[in-house]
């Protein structure tokens, strides 16, 4: 009631709820309803023009055999042929497997390292704030630039990575190539992605740890619960919603991964690191198979959209806390 306190207008300060809403109604000019729509319309219009209209167009194209390198051919509708081609294509399934493995391993490492770091940083040692900022830097960088400069770091001879490994293991630096070897390349993209995004998981976990009120630990202490027990019964369960949020977000982002890997290995050697986004880019912008790639894009949309749905539900769950 007294939250409105206008020092120069004593009468206002004394008004109750009905008077306030009456005042709102008295507003000159546009009605609230009109303003609401006026404010939202430009955003919706922009998204319709740049996202939805092209999407609808793409759905149409996915039923055609359009190939931009042969665009002189008349547009031919082929029904669901593109979709059956893709879903029956072993290569596409291989790429999806490669992508799934990349997502699973990189997210796993990020969770382990990120959660571990968060637990350590949460002990609030001196200077933790400064070092946290340092650790956060990689995730703020451009993935493309990161992919590019890691190719230098990972060059078998001139790069420092192999020399460093050689220092610890004695294996000669030119004996292996992180980006050029079929057995190593899939792990290389996981390594660089983890370097970049473990801090992301760390930051979210840190928020989770800080959301746990002290009194719960105090109560556990009174009950003489061991540190181990406290971790399993308090710390972990109360951080899980945050962890889930980080996992879902990373999983979606890595499922879409294109830039970093495209510059680091460009899908090679052979197609060992060809993620599904790279396949899509090749089909659409190198082979110019627009109809086919539209169909593939729609399949990916549906997958990401499904995941996004779960993601938003998880967001709301965390928000309610």
């Amino acid at each position: 009631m007294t939250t409105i306190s206008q020092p120069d207008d004593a009468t206002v300060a004394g008004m109750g709820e009905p008077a306030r809403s009456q005042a709102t109604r008295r507003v000159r000019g546009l009605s609230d309803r009109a303003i609401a729509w006026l404010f939202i319309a430009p955003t919706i219009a922009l998204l319709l023009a740049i996202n939805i209209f092209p999407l609808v167009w793409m759905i149409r194209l996915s039923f055609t055999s359009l190939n931009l390198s042969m665009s002189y051919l008349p547009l031919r509708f082929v029904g669901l042929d593109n979709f059956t081609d893709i879903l029956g294509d072993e290569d596409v399934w291989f790429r999806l497997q490669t992508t799934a493995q990349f997502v699973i391993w990189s997210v796993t490492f990020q969770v382990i390292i990120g959660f571990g770091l968060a637990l350590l940083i949460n002990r609030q040692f001196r200077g933790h704030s400064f070092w946290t900022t340092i650790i956060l830097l990689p995730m703020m960088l451009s993935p493309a630039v990161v992919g590019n400069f890691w190719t230098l770091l990972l060059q078998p001879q001139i790069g420092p990575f192999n020399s460093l490994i050689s220092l610890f293991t004695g294996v000669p630096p030119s004996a292996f190539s992180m980006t050029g070897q079929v057995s190593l390349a899939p792990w290389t993209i996981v390594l660089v992605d983890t370097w970049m995004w473990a801090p992301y998981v760390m930051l979210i976990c840190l928020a989770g740890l800080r959301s746990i009120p002290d009194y719960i630990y105090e109560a556990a202490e009174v009950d003489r619960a061991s540190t181990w027990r406290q971790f399993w019964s308090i710390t972990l369960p109360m951080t899980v919603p945050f962890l889930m949020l980080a996992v879902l977000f990373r999983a979606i982002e890595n499922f879409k991964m294109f830039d970093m890997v495209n510059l680091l290995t460009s899908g090679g050697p052979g197609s060992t690191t060809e993620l599904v986004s790279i396949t899509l880019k090749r089909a659409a912008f190198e082979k110019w198979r627009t109809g086919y790639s539209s169909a593939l894009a729609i399949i990916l949309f549906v997958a990401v959209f499904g995941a996004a749905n779960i993601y938003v539900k998880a967001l709301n769950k965390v928000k309610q806390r």
Partner: protein
Amino acid sequence: MTTAAAKSTAHSIVEASPRAKAVAGGIVILYAVITILPLLWIVATGFKSQSDAIAYPPKVIFEPTLEGYVNLFTVRTRQTPDFIAKLPPPETWYDKLARQRDMVIAGPSKVVPRFVNSLIIGFGSTFLAVFLGTLAAYAFSRFRIPLADDLLFFILSTRMMPPVAVAIPIYLMYRQLNLTDTRLGMILLYTAVNVSLAVWLLKGFIDEIPREYEEAALVDGYTRLQALRKVVLPQAVTGIAATAIFCLIFSWNEYAFAVLLTSGEAQTMPPFIPFIIGEGGQDWPAVAAATTLFVVPIVLFTVLLRKHLLRGITFGAVRK
């Protein structure tokens, strides 16, 4: 008295022991140092000569030179030493540096136009996204909008799509509209991507401003728009600034759209940097120099954003 006692107990139980802190600090600092090494290596490579940059084994100690930076900003031609001897003496330090390598500077490289593109597209799309985002966020925060949750989900979902997939129809549409490889096209595209983040983040920030302030202003005879401008916006300034920096970072770093939809005129830095070519492949000192210049603003922004980082990367879901 009771509160003081409670506080002191809380302190002793919950806070880690000095030894636990030291161990944690040691591990975290070790990780931080390892994680920052790749970046430091790149910064150092920017100050290496061509031969030092590709030396085997890799050189940790080297004589610093600005060659990489000169190479980044110039186009050079190789000449015979005799030809160079006949030239008038070099006018500037960079001419001199180039001639030491039997090179003559022929003109500026494309890095400045690319950098300018990054700036124009970055700031243009950020301004538009934050402007549209503020209006929409205010409406979502303050008015009852039918299907508000569905609309918000729709706005967010547009950001969930894989950029390569989005680029296919955009490419076709831009060809029809003559927007391919134009700054305007890129600004519109990045605005559309950023506006979803802006709406979500700003709605969170505006939700935190008590409604009572505006209601008081309305009672005082302000219109909605005046109340928004004079009461809400001044209070949301930090949130708006943080949101703007997030949008700017996205546009600055974006690669997939840039590489697929631009080739020259409107090309930004990320697709340009990997293709800085010297004699015989990538000119690593120049690439490293470009990377360093490109990354410095991001480092500054990260430090500035530290408090709001968590909000930004989770679309406002986690607020701390």
